[in-house]
């Protein structure tokens, strides 16, 4: 074998190895992340029946050589005919928008203060932000039940100080859901904001101050615009998952709290209507595709 041939075969094996390496995670994600959506779409077009699994087959192999397709839009029509579903989508949207704004305001104040803290404190402060992010979501939501209940710790404390004489009804209301969401998603907002604010070029702020710009104006005209990538990343990380949130409205919200994630859960686990649950998921996915793609773009930009 000549050296030229050897180089070529070596290159070829590296090239093939390269493809094989790409293929491992690629195929895994195609199989376990993308492929399942095809089944959701398929089942959303089926009809519910009392059987295992509880839906009709999409393709029927009759006497003819080709299968006949039995697709039904019934589940989708049902979603639009019953106002419950549209209300649930709109209510989720409202809750997601309001809680994203609340989380942004609180998260920005914390991230900004951590970024401005003396350097030796920053490590420990950042760790204090990250720690709740690692602790179980369910446990953190559960912790609020004992606080917000009518006979809970918050009411006991407020009544013993004498601020109120009748307990506040917070548990099982939308307010409890907002508290739960802001609390659970706060670290997701603070981390990208902090990463952005920490890298900010201080000389720009000094320049503004030297030129006579007041601190408050500098904050609005320099700091905020420079931190927009962090704000966007944080808002996507809160808004998108909150749209389909189940645990928080289920444990803290009341019967009147409508959220589409809870509706999907109920359709699937209690009503056992798999086609309707699938249709709910497909429409939610359609609503979220654009925010998810924008999030992906913003992340790719941040890393490169």
């Amino acid at each position, binding site marked *: 074998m000549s050296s030229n041939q050897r180089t070529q075969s070596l290159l070829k094996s590296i090239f093939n*190895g390269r493809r094989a*390496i*790409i293929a*491992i*995670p*690629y195929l895994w*994600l*195609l199989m*376990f*992340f993308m492929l399942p959506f095809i*089944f*959701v779409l*398929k*089942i959303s077009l089926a009809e519910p029946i009392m059987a295992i699994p509880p839906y009709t087959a999409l393709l029927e192999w009759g006497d003819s050589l080709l299968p006949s397709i039995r697709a039904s839009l019934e589940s989708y029509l049902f979603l639009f005919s019953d106002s419950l579903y549209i209300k649930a989508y709109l209510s989720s949207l409202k809750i997601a928008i309001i809680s994203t704004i609340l989380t942004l305001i609180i998260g920005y*104040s*914390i991230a*900004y*203060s*951590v970024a*401005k*803290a003396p350097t030796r404190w920053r490590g420990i*402060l950042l*760790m*204090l932000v*990250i*720690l*709740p992010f*690692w*602790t*179980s979501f369910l*446990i*953190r939501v*559960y*912790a609020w039940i004992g606080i917000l209940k009518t*006979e*809970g710790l918050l009411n*006991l404390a407020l009544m013993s100080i004498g601020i109120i004489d009748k307990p506040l009804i917070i548990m099982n209301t939308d307010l409890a859901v907002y508290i739960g969401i802001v*609390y659970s998603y706060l670290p997701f907002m603070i981390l990208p904001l902090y990463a952005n604010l920490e890298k900010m070029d*201080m000389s720009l702020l000094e320049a503004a101050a030297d030129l006579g710009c007041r*601190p408050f104006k500098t904050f609005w005209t320099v700091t905020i615009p420079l931190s927009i990538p962090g704000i966007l990343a944080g808002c996507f*990380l809160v808004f998108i*998952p909150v749209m*389909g949130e*189940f*645990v928080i409205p289920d*444990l803290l919200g009341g019967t009147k709290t409508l959220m589409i994630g809870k509706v*999907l859960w109920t359709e*699937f*686990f209690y009503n056992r209507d798999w086609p309707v*649950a*699938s249709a709910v*998921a497909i429409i939610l996915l359609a609503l*979220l595709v654009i*925010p*998810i793609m924008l*999030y*992906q773009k913003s*992340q*790719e930009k941040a*890393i490169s």
Partner: protein
Amino acid sequence: MKKFGNFNIAALVIGFSFLYIPIILLILFSFNESRLVTVWGGFSTKWYGELMQNQGIKDAAWVTIKVAFISSTMATILGTIAGLVMTRFGSFRGRTLFSGMIYAPMVMPEVIIGLSTLLMFVALAVDRGVFTVTLAHITFSMCYVAVVIQSRMSSYDDSITEAALDLGCTPFKTFMLITLPIILPAVIAGWLLSFTLSLDDLVIASFTSGPGSTTLPMKIYSMVRLGVTPEINAVSTILVGLVTLGVIAASIIGRKQKQQTN
């Protein structure tokens, strides 16, 4: 820039109180003698004793540890490869879709991931159980690992890898002897993150598990639905304690590594 002032101190004090008071109260009331979670009846560890008697919780904890251990290990391997593919493999066909499949599971509502994964298992007639929960956990955890590795690789010096390849080292050997030891802290961080993600997951596990594969969060959830009890506080305290130890250990590993490289 204005100095660290009163506003910042207030924001940090209020912010961290908000983040920590609920967890501290939860831990405190796990040591409550009284069955009521809101009235202090004296210090007691009886709820931890009761926990040890609860076979359902012990079984669920065992399932959860098994799933978390296998899924985080697999997710770390797949996620590390995915992170390297994203940063060191240049452009290839389908790259945009690949990066989409890495970022989407991190924000996608869990009910959608859970439902879709389950429907595929049902359609393919795969029996639901520990195996299916593990597969689902590997899939979303590997995306987090990929992002951790990706951000580590952005400050990785390629010249050392090139030197090894120029000197005739095979790509695989170069990875094992050079790249892996350098990025090891990120790999460990990815493993720990996957482990806690799997440990915490309620929604995806509820969809993909079958009889006999109830995980700890599923067990806690069904207990919470029946009412607030000090026993739930006790099991939560144990979980919070474990995770805190893990995070502190990870940060010490990270700091040591930093000192070495500096």
